[in-house]
Each structure stands twice: as structure tokens, then as C-alpha cells.
């Protein structure tokens, strides 16, 4: 785990309102694995804000985001050279290992975030990658999905499959998913063994506050920032995740 003052390098748009921000964080770039995240300290909000690492480019790491509140808005407004305090890599990622011959990546909305790194690691382990990416409409699809096979799904049918990414996805030996919790619950129904990246509110990001509780089927709570954010889909007690909050809706 490293704590760096990372200079912003560049920002690019990948869908209307959705942008990739890259920052120079050599130690993190060198060590991060797919599904891990960084906790960013931004001037406005009090607490840090967690973001999956999207890509690594030399000494830089990238995160992808939309403005949903004060922290994301400030991050998107930063200019090259501005510094962001970057803590990471954090959490347990997808932990890919050699074995499966094919991987299906299922992402909804901002759930694209951990997928480019996952695709890279899966390929490096010799897997064939199918990436299924869903959004409400064609406009909101991230322009950077990639894989041996890419399947788009839109709720309104304006591009690709008309329906959810989960419905559009083929089966695979290994399924990785990220998106709103209700989507992940659907993933758990279909592929109990899928590995899913869960979103929670976080206090510390480092395992000390117990704020990021993920309810487990086996009872009790795990820390999303430490034992997670990636879980076996069947291990999570999806029904006990808050439903009345705009929680994990960033996807």
C-alpha cells in the first residue's frame, strides 16, 4: 500500500459525462491487480473516495467516473498538474489464476471500471475474453470496451442486445462482474461462482473502521475494503444490502 501525491496527467471522455482521469502513481501502477482500488483524497469532501483502477499506462493509473456528487465533480474538474492524494492499491482484486480457457466479463454502466485490467490479466493467463457491457442506452455505453468478443446491451435496445448485460451474456468458465448491486444479485442467481466487485460506502479503505460491511450468506459481515471488494457471487447476502439508498447506483 502506498500513499502518493499523484499529479493529474490527463482526462478523456468515454461517454457523455463519463471520463477517464489518469494520474502519475508509479508504485501503484507497478503493483495494482484487476479489481483493486485506490482511495483518493480530494480537496472538497471530508473523506477519501474509492475508485477501481481502470487501466495502467506506464507510471500512470487511470480511473473512470461520472460526476455523481461533490468528490467526483471536483475530480473531473482537476487540471493536469493538480495533485490528488492517492492511497492504494487497496482490497483484494479478482485474483485471476491460470486454468480457465475463457472469461466472461459482465459490466453495467460504470461497472466497466475494473474490466480493462481484468481483460488484460485474463489474456495474460491465456483466456479468451468475452466482454458484455450494458447501459441504459447507446449514448451511455462506455466507448472503450474491448475483448476477443464484445457484446453490447442496452435497456432501450438502442444498441446491441435489448435487455440487461446479464441476459445478454454467454456462459463462460470464469465470470467476472461489476455493476449496480441489483445487477450483481442477478449475476449471483445465474452464476453462483462468478466473482463480483461490490460497492459500499467506505470510511477508511484500509480495514480499520468496519464501515464497509458486506453482509454474508454465512452470517456476519466482511469488509469490502479488505476481504473484498471482490466476492464469490453466492457468498454475499444480496437481500441484506440496502435497497432504499442511491447505493451502488454509480454503475
Amino acid at each position, binding site marked *: *500500500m502506498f*500513499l502518493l501525491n499523484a499529479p493529474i496527467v490527463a482526462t478523456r471522455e468515454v461517454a457523455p459525462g463519463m471520463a477517464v482521469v489518469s494520474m502519475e502513481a508509479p508504485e501503484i501502477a507497478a503493483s495494482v491487480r484487476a479489481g483493486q482500488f485506490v482511495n483518493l*483524497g480530494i480537496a472538497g*469532501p*471530508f*473523506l*477519501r473516495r474509492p475508485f477501481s483502477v481502470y487501466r495502467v499506462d506506464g507510471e500512470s493509473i487511470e480511473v473512470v467516473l461520472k460526476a455523481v456528487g461533490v468528490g467526483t465533480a471536483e475530480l473531473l474538474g482537476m487540471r493536469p498538474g493538480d495533485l490528488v*492524494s492517492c*492511497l492504494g492499491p487497496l482490497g483484494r482484486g479478482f485474483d485471476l489464476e491460470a486454468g480457465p480457457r475463457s472469461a466472461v466479463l459482465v459490466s453495467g454502466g460504470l461497472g466497466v471500471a475494473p474490466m480493462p485490467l481484468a481483460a488484460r490479466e485474463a489474456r495474460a493467463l491465456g483466456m479468451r475474453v468475452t466482454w458484455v457491457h450494458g447501459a441504459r442506452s447507446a449514448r451511455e455505453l462506455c466507448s472503450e470496451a474491448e475483448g476477443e468478443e464484445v457484446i453490447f446491451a442496452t435497456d432501450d435496445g438502442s444498441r446491441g442486445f435489448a435487455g440487461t448485460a446479464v441476459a445478454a451474456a454467454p456462459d463462460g468458465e470464469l465470470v467476472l462482474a461489476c455493476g449496480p448491486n441489483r445487477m450483481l444479485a442477478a449475476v449471483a442467481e445465474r452464476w453462483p461462482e462468478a466473482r463480483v466487485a461490490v460497492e*459500499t*460506502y*467506505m*470510511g*477508511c*479503505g*484500509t*480495514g*480499520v*473502521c*468496519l*464501515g*464497509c*460491511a*458486506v*453482509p454474508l450468506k454465512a*452470517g*456476519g*459481515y466482511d469488509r469490502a475494503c*479488505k476481504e473484498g471488494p471482490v466476492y464469490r457471487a453466492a457468498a454475499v447476502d444480496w437481500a*441484506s*444490502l*440496502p435497497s*432504499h*439508498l*442511491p*447505493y451502488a447506483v454509480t454503475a
Partner: protein
Amino acid sequence: MTVDMSVSVGGLRLRGPVLAASGTFGYGTEVPLLERRALGGMVSKGIFLRPRAGTPPPRIVETPSGMLNAIGLQGPGADALIREYAPLWASWDFPVLVNINGESVGEYGELTSRLDGVPGVAGFEINISCPNVEQGGMYFGNDPHAAAAVTEAVRKRTRLPVWVKLTPMVSDIGVIARAVEAAGADALCAVNTFVGMSIDLNAHQPRLSFRTGGLSGPAIRPLAVHLAHQAARSVRIPVLGVGGIMRAEDALEFLVAGCTAVQVGTATFVNPRAIADIHDGIKAHLETHGFSSVADLPRYLPRD
């Protein structure tokens, strides 16, 4: 000039005046970035005799310059603490106090007996911000008699240092401070979090599943400085200041207001190096102002 950063507080000699506050540092096995040399001591996450699952999510909400938490004292219970963490603590070069909790006076006592003498346990911090299940769920910390009863129950069962962590939402903290001093506390910690609530405007209900949570962070600092000062004015035993300390200047406010040492909590979430930064900043301040030790710092402490 070398500055002596050590302090004596409630039966312990600490190498520095900055401790990690309960619940914000786990059991000391995380937070790898912290430079341990700066840590005067640590208070473990609050523990009950038996394991507790804690509250369902959401457990935290950010607020202006602070956060609400409702963790529900999730913890593994005394046996697991003794098995898994105390042996590690026994080898560390700073003392670890256990933050103890109970639903009845008897439970506090039992937990103390269980932990007393376990290598690695350097002392006890009594969390009196627990609902007294036997008396209708009012906090022990709101009632001088209940607070004293808990303190006495713990005191009777150990010769280790006993610190009492005060509840802030009381009309006169001096009354509680004096009651627990008389009941045998070696030091006071002021203060715990303030009860707060945040409302979700779409769901028309509280954001926290537990409905209310404890407010921490710089938002509460002026209140905590005042309460720590009031506590320090009311008793002869030392007081540790807690609440919203982010920087050395904040810690110094508590020290000047009459505290002997400080605890740092939420700041660690924002800056995992906060404790080292605060320790170093206090040292620099003492050097700049020509004080040779923490005890040398002028105190603003008119006695009650």
C-alpha cells in the same frame, strides 16, 4: 535542543502524547503506512465479552467536516481477542489498551476478569457510551451512578490502568468525571462521538440502518476541546483529549486546554500517516517555542 515527547498518563509512561483512538485503528494489525515510532499507544476496537455481528449497512455517512458511524461494536469477543491479537501486542513497543463494553455492570466486570493478566493487554479503556440494558437502555455514561458502578466493577478486577471514556451528550461532564474519578479511574478520555442523524430524502428515512450514528471528525473539535477542558478542570487525574484532531495544532489545543495526551481517530481514515504527522508537528511546535517537554507547555486550566 531535544524535546522530551514522553508523557505519564493514568498509570502508563508513553513515549509520545499521541495515541490511536478506539475503533479507528482496528486491533493495530492494519494501517501499514503509519510510522509506528510516533505511536504513544493504541486503544483497540471496542470489545464485548461475546462476539457481536454489528449493524447492517449502511454504517457510515459523511457529514460536513465529519462522519456518522454506526458499526454496532462488531467484534470477535474476548476469547478471540486473547487468542489472535493479544499475543501480537505483547511484542509491540507501545502499550495497547482494550476498549471494553457491556450491557450490564456485571458484563463489564466479567470482561475485565477475562482480560486481566493476559500478556499484551496493558490496560483498559471503559466505553461508558453503551446502553444499559438493565436500566432501560440509557447510556451508562449519562448517569454518574451508573458510570461509577461500571468503573468500580472494572477497578475491583484489575491492577492495570483503568481509563474511562466519557460520553459527550450530558448537561455537566464535570459531575460524571468526578464520579468515575472517585470510583477509581486512573485517567479520563474526553470524548466519545456525539449522537447524530442524517436523512435520505428519497427514501424519507435515516441513511444509517441503525438510524442514528456517532459524529466524529473536525466538526466536533470545538465541542470536544470544551468538554475535555471541563473534565480536566474537574478532576486531579489526567485527561486524554479526543475529537476531531487532524493536525498538530488541533492536538495542541487539547494539550493547552489541560489534557495530558490525545487520541486520534477519524483523521487516520483521511491521512493514514496522521498520527506520525501530528506527533512530529507537536515536537516542532515545542522546539519552536522553546519548550523542552510536553509537560512544559503552558496550560490554560483554571480549576473549578
